[in-house]
């Protein structure tokens, strides 16, 4: 799939329209930073636990292909395609770049809190923060693995808001410590099934940095879901956004050796 084809695709047009609608939607949640509550509000914590239970895929192996299209104002689109192998029960994933040729063979291997970037040019593994941006896009590696938000954030309920056609509960997350990328986040969870449709990431001073829209999901089995379309908007860099489509989803068992450095090295040859 080339950049021009994607930029003209109806799916992206739909997403952009959705994003525009979202931006004009009147959020009823609290705006701007407020002091951290230093405790979890039970209702908010329950909402977070519920959507994490649906999105964390313990008991399943997952392989799929993501196509990322990064759009910047005044620049041609940048397309990346990555294959991912995910095993949430081991808190591990392996991610391999397939396109473009300049990135081919590059990959990440995550095992719990350790994240390694493999550079085929030098055949070395570089230890990275698990919050690394994938291929300099607005998408972070932690998007592809399981999450445990309540380990790092205090959750509080911030009311309701409409996001496009969905009524949502708004959960505000305040960092317990400043070692997370976004000290303040707001998650918009649709009331129908509790899945997130929009996430806003704020800086410590309360400036909106990024907004992620979960456009569509696919059900994988007993109340387990994975997103199939996602839009990440950089709110500081006007006009910069990354659109992700998720295809070739399979839940067949993945061989253990796929979750290793050796597999990454082998794939780059």
């Amino acid at each position: 799939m080339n950049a021009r084809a994607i930029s003209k695709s109806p799916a992206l047009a739909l997403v952009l329209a959705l994003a525009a609608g979202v931006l004009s939607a009147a959020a009823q949640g609290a705006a701007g930073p407020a002091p951290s509550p230093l405790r979890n509000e039970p209702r908010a914590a329950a909402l977070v636990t519920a959507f994490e239970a649906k999105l964390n895929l313990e008991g399943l192996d997952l392989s799929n292909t993501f196509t990322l299209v990064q759009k910047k104002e005044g620049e041609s689109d940048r397309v990346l395609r990555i294959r991912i192998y995910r095993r949430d029960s081991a808190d591990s994933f392996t991610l391999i770049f397939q396109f473009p040729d300049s990135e081919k063979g590059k990959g990440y291997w995550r095992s719990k809190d350790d994240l390694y970037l493999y550079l085929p040019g030098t055949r070395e593994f570089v230890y990275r923060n698990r919050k690394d941006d994938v291929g300099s896009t607005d998408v972070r590696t932690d998007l592809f693995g399981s999450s445990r938000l309540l380990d790092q954030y205090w959750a509080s309920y911030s009311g309701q808001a409409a996001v496009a056609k969905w009524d949502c509960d708004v959960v505000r997350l305040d960092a317990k410590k400043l070692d997370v990328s976004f000290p303040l986040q707001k998650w918009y969870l649709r009331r129908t099934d509790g899945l997130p449709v929009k996430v806003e990431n704020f800086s410590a001073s309360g400036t909106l940095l990024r907004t992620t829209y979960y456009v569509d999901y696919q059900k994988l089995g007993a109340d387990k879901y994975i997103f199939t379309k996602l839009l990440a908007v950089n709110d500081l860099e006007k006009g910069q956004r990354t659109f992700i489509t998720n295809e070739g989803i399979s839940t067949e068992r993945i061989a253990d050796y796929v979750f290793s450095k050796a597999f990454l090295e082998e794939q780059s040859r």
Partner: protein
Amino acid sequence: MNRFASVAFRNVFRNGKRSFTLGINYAIVSFILVLLFSFSRGAASTISSSLARATAGHITVSGRFASEGKVFGGLKRKDDIARIARETLGEDAKVIARYQLQSTVYYKGLSKRLAFLGIDATADAGLRGQLAFSEGGWEDWAADPNGLALPADLAEYFGLSLGDEVVVSTRTRFGAFNTGLLKLRGIWKTDNFFLRGQALVAFPFLRDLDLASPDAASTVFVYFPEAKDLAARRDRLSEALASAGFEVSKPKTDSEAIAAVSSASAKYEADEEGRDRIMLKLATLDEVLGLVRNVLAAVNAVGGLVAAVMLFVIAVSVFINLRMSVNERLREIGTMRALGFQAGGVTALFVAESVALALVFSGGGALLGAAAAGAVRGLLRFPPGGNLGIFLEGGRLALLPKPLDMAAIVLAVSLFAALFSYFPARRGGRIRPVEALTRTF
């Protein structure tokens, strides 16, 4: 002796064409070496002065601190460090704290990662004289706690005018993103290479943007009226800081010293020792410049190598020239020997002639080199943003010819000439008078 020397000097130009050809070679070698040494001296002086006026102190205190199992870049207890420095080194020691941070500026769809320098405008006024403001000014910038003063090229890149507001975003030392708003209060240019590309903001703004504590700083600079006895002064300060509970060390290598003055807030790393502490590194300006000196020494060495190759070629010429000269002057040698000149005297005369030639032409070459250095320095102006920026002083290439260097070069070339003319001269001296008077060339 005087008569002997005067004869030797007169003989230098007996065969003018040959002497001139050889002499030109001496002159070129001296000319090149004088220019090279002038460049090296000038570069050391310019870099040292620019660095001391921009991003290094006579003593630079930098370091890291461990807190709650993590090690962070930068200093804590900066006020204690400043007080101890003043108490130990005397009130004439000027102590300045700086904050450095890499952050991204966003403005109307453009973004760029910049090096920010947080300074206390009152205490750190030494920078003021180095900045030529084209718009706004130091006072306007200093009066605004959210003021930004940018180099002209960066302001032009963003298309900024005075009063425009920009968003600045950084990943703080703890890992969290933080953002702030800055208002452009000044646009400046500078000749100081080490200030180029630096965005100036107020110290508290940058510290708060990095979510650092009020007693934090990136570096503390100590300046003295004169940059002397820096190592001894550093040792005294180290002792005083150690007795106040700091862990103190000095750079083990030139690279460490350079890293000490260029330290910016870094991401934290896990602490292996598990105890809170502040680790300081005290580098003197001499140590910071050590790397620069090594580079310049390497430049000199390469120049010296080129000169050595040229001198080797000259050596062959000297040898051949003198052998030809001896053969041509057999009757003269025979006459001198018949009049009572010893073999050593004849050898000495030929060596003296060769040295005289070397003295005259290498001296001339050295003087020409000094004149050329002066002309380049005085007549040529270079753009401060160009590749030569680091070597410029007020837009001019700092070439500093030193009389001592010139004398050493002339002496070295003359000694070389003496050495390589000795063997053919000795052959001439050893010819017996009868042979000299009867042999023909």
